[in-house]
Structure formats: C-alpha cells, structure tokens
C-alpha cells in the first residue's frame, strides 16, 4: 500500500491504516522526540501525543509537503510543548517548596545516556546531550534533527519552515555555543580532577 493510500484510509478513520502508519513511523517520531527531550518516558509520551494529533488532524494534511515532514513538524511542536509544560511544573514545585507546601526537592534530571550511542562514546555523548540542554530551543531542535535524525539542511529547513541559509546559521551558532559550554565544562572538570 502506498503512502497516499494509507493517508486516504486514515482520513476515513481506518484502524489498520492507522496501525500501519504508527508502526512505520514510530521509530522516526520516537528518536526525534528523544533527541530533543533526552528522556525515554517523555519521548514515548510525546510519540503517543504526536500520533493522536495525526489521527485527529489528518484531514488538514493536503499533501503540500511530504508526510514525514508533516510528522516531524508535529513531533517538534509537541516536544516543545512538553518542555514548556515541564518547566512550568518545575517552577510551580519550586514556589510550593518555598511556602513549605511541597517537601519534595526540585531535582535536576540525571545525565542522559542515549541507548544508541556506542560504548566508547557513551560518556562523551552524555556530556554533549547535557550541553545541548543549555541551547536555545530552535538551535537545539536544528542540532538534534541534524545529528540524531541525520536530516539534511534542506529537510531541516522544510520541517522548521526556515530558509536553508537560516538553518546553516542556526547550526553554526549551535555548534559554537556547544563548544563554549563544553570548554567551560572540561576546564572545571580538569581543575577538580587535580
């Protein structure tokens, strides 16, 4: 069955078509979410939200862009919403802890070890992912799409609705910022080791 046929069937609320779509694109959606969120549970949550959104708004998909591009767009937007929601919760928990209403301490998430990183790169990848958390959201998204998903500049520009040169600039700034953050990290690490 072709992609267009699947989408047409999904517009008619066909369960089998929906199952095929989920099974075909779940890895892509999950990995994109994981690259941005750096948490397996959150990534699964966003994957489910993405497919629910696909099921509910497939009628608005006119086929002007590729289906995968549309999926990437929904995933990125859902991941960003998730980050915003988490930040809000964290802020609220912090305020509650100030008033003594919530005794739970506000704990930063532990280092993220990507399950796809090779053994010799696990530690370095964890440091890089931690540094990525400090990037502005659009730089982080572009970097994750490029490095984790392996998308080209043109594909990223379609997903993020930017020009190719804007994506180029975004990635250049992301790499520069990451180098700065990593330099600071390794300088402190080196001093503490002595």
């Amino acid at each position, binding site marked *: 069955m072709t992609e267009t046929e699947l989408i047409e069937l999904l517009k008619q609320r066909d369960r089998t078509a929906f*199952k095929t779509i*989920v*099974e075909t694109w*779940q*890895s892509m959606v*999950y*990995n994109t979410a*994981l690259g941005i969120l750096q948490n*397996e549970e959150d*990534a*699964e949550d966003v*994957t*489910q939200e993405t*497919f*629910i959104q696909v*099921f509910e708004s497939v009628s608005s998909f006119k086929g002007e862009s590729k289906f995968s591009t549309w999926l990437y767009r929904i995933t990125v937007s859902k991941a960003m919403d998730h980050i915003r929601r988490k930040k809000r919760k964290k802020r609220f928990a912090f305020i509650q802890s100030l008033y003594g209403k919530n005794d739970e301490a506000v704990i930063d998430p532990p280092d993220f070890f*990507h*399950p*796809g*990183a*090779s053994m010799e*790169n696990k530690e*370095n*990848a964890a*440091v*890089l*992912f931690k*540094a990525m958390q400090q990037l502005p959201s659009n730089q982080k998204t572009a970097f994750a799409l490029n*490095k*984790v998903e392996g998308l080209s500049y043109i594909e990223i520009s379609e997903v993020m609705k930017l020009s190719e040169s804007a994506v180029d600039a975004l990635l250049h700034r992301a*790499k520069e910022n*990451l*180098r700065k953050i*990593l*330099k600071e990290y*390794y*300088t402190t690490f*080196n001093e503490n080791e002595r």
Partner: protein
Amino acid sequence: MKDEFIHKKIDAAMHSIDKIEKASPRPFLFTRLEARMQNEKNAWTKISSFVSRPIVAFACICLVIFINAMVILFSNNTRNTTNSVTQNGPELATADEYSQVSATLYEFENSKP
C-alpha cells in the same frame, strides 16, 4: 598541554553522536496508544453524557431563570430606593435646617403667638 587536552575532549564530545544508532520505543506502542485514545475518548463521553442528562439540563435551565429573575428584582429594588431618596431627601433637610419640626408638646400647643 592543558588546552590541547581540553580541545581533544571537546572534539570527541562533538563527534560522539555522529554515528549514533536509532533507539527503539518499548514494544506494543500501538496497543498503549489505542488504550490512551480510548481513555481520552471515555472522559469526553462521560462529560457529554452527564451534561445531556434531562435532570442536569432542567437544573441548568432553572438556574438560568433564577439568576435572571434575581437580576430583574434586584435592579427594580435599587431603582425604587434611589427614587424615594431623591424625592424625600431635600424636604427633610430643609425642615431640619430651619427647625420647622415641633420638638416638644409646649411648642406644639403654642405654635402661634
């Protein structure tokens, strides 16, 4: 020496996810997804079935009528009070100011010289 070490570490970190493999979600994602969709659907079904109950609909209509009646009654009362205050107010004030009201029995009886 120190700078060189740091630069090497930075380069290693920057290239650590170059050939990263795809992670897989937990198995049976579709089953969990369907269950979630069913749950969300159930929540809305529950809300809509509760709202469409005749007793709830009747109670809502009664509440709207009651609020409307209260607003009309309250606005009428306020208007009456305002009117009475504006009509009687100046006369009383004049009587008080010029002591035209008889205060004692003697004054009442000998009001004319």
